[in-house]
């Protein structure tokens, strides 16, 4: 059951979440061209989140604008300077936008944004290799593929998995989760070359099993 903070008067803008008077309203900068930006800590504060959650478009725009560079720094740190970074940022901002009305604890907006970023990052991992599952169309096996039902050369799937060393299994499972071999190398504290060698060895063991 969803729980929301209940303020005594029913007004979400009471108590310690009220913006200071100086931060309210619109002030023009020296050139008279519009709003002076407030500090990031203010525009990412619970007050702004509460107002954005209540439908204040201006607050929401500022909120998301402040979040963007944080996400940019974060995703570059995680996956490097790749084209996917911009997609991750956009998807995360969209996720935040869609979830604003349901934020339970405005003072924990950072955690809310973190979760959104983590969801997008792991969705990216999942989608990395999902389109490459089949080397061939499973309905049309390649010309040179041996028909396992007639040749007697099929390997029971469980038996095939059982020949994997624990290390190889770990690496391949991480690969199936969606990590790159370089990322897997970081996770298992070794080099990318060593990771790939494990994969090759796994293939060879499987091939010997097939021949046996």
């Amino acid at each position, binding site marked *: 059951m*969803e729980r929301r903070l209940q303020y*005594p008067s029913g007004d979400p803008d009471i108590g310690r979440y009220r913006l200071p008077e100086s931060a309210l309203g619109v002030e023009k900068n020296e050139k008279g061209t519009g709003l002076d930006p407030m500090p990031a800590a203010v525009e990412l504060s619970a007050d702004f989140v509460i107002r954005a959650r209540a439908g204040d478009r201006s607050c929401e725009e500022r909120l998301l604008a402040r979040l963007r560079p944080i996400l940019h720094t974060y995703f570059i740190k995680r996956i490097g300077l790749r084209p996917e970074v911009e997609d991750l940022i956009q998807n995360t901002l969209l996720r935040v936008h869609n979830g604003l009305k349901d934020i339970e604890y405005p003072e924990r907006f950072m*955690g809310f944004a973190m979760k959104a970023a983590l969801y997008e990052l792991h969705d990216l991992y999942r989608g990395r290799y999902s389109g490459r599952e089949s080397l061939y169309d499973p309905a049309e096996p390649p010309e040179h593929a041996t028909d396992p039902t007639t040749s007697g050369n099929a390997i029971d799937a469980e038996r095939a998995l059982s020949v994997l060393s624990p290390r190889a299994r*770990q690496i391949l499972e991480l690969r199936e989760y969606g990590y790159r071999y370089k990322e897997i190398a970081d996770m298992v504290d070794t080099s990318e070359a060593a990771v790939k060698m494990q994969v090759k060895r796994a293939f060879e063991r499987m091939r010997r099993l097939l021949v046996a």
Partner: protein
Amino acid sequence: MSDWIDQFIFFDELGEESRSGLDSILKQHGDAAVSAAFEEWKHLRSGLRSEFATRIPDRHSLIHFAMWRHGNASLLTVEELNSVEAMLPDFEEALDRSEALRAIVERIGDEQLDFLEAWRLHVGDVEAPSRPPSLGPLYSRRSSQRASNFVWRAAAVFLIAISTAALYKGLGVESEMIVVGSPADGLRQVVLDDGTMIRLVGGAELSYRRPSAEEPFDRNVSLTGRALFVVTSGSQRFVVETPAAVTTVWGTTFGLDSDESFTEVVLAEGRVSVVSRRDSQHPVVLEPGEMTRVVGAREPTTPVRVNITDALSYTRLFVFRNEKTFMIANKLTEHFGVSIRVHSALADETVTGTFERNWSLGYILQTVARTLDAEVKGSESDGYELAPRETGGRTM
């Protein structure tokens, strides 16, 4: 192994164009046996993917679990937290069975920290766990019940301040030893191979022999400074060495504070034995809520009763062990400066729980209330009340 075979082994790295050319490569170089091998390789990978997927039916739940696992439970919604707690046995079993899953959970910890650092860079300082944030469950339970949401089995808060003359500076200075340290003004949490979690505080350093396939983790560590240990139960005792003392536990929660010639041990839960390094013939065994000190070459002092919450405050945690609810309310009021009333029906109920001091008061009270099947009323401005749950009443 031939380069062209590598393309099949690593087919998932190829772009669309390269993959479409694999068939012609196979015609050129391969034979029926090789083709069959590659076909089986695909099946193996597919089987692995399917089996692994059954362990992680929902990636978001895995993320929630990892956040909870790494000390960020306060960032979860009530529904998410309830879901994590309900699935804890499943997560435990899945982690026990899969090295890959453990690695993913640890990596999510790093992903969280990177986010916090990015936030700090653009916004300013935030209260964040140090790397790697792997302390086990911070939970609340009625003292008469077994903890249902305790992740890493029998955790005890074991603060061991051990000054060690044998510690190495830096990380992994010698290949046989692992050295982990916390920032001078921060925290660092570590999980050892046996599931023991250690929270290093303010410049503490932990060292232990690097485990290997031939020599698994031996449950012997050395510590300098202050740390909180959550030691898993096991057939093998867990030993913590400091320059002044040797402390032995079997699944315990205790605190240690030490320097070169002084060690103080406060036991929150379980049993612990403390001896002086210079004289191991006169051990002192602590009961929960007791404290002993080793100074220089002297024997450990006679155990004395202490208030665990106060004695372990330097862990930056609230540690409540069989603490009456009204006392918990007093401690929280003292810390947060907010009045908390406890209904008479709940005042003498005892609770055991550990909470981060930087969590919001509301969140802590909600956790306590959930444990007592109670509800929290009021607000920070007007004060809170813990009361028995009413049917149909308004709650926080």
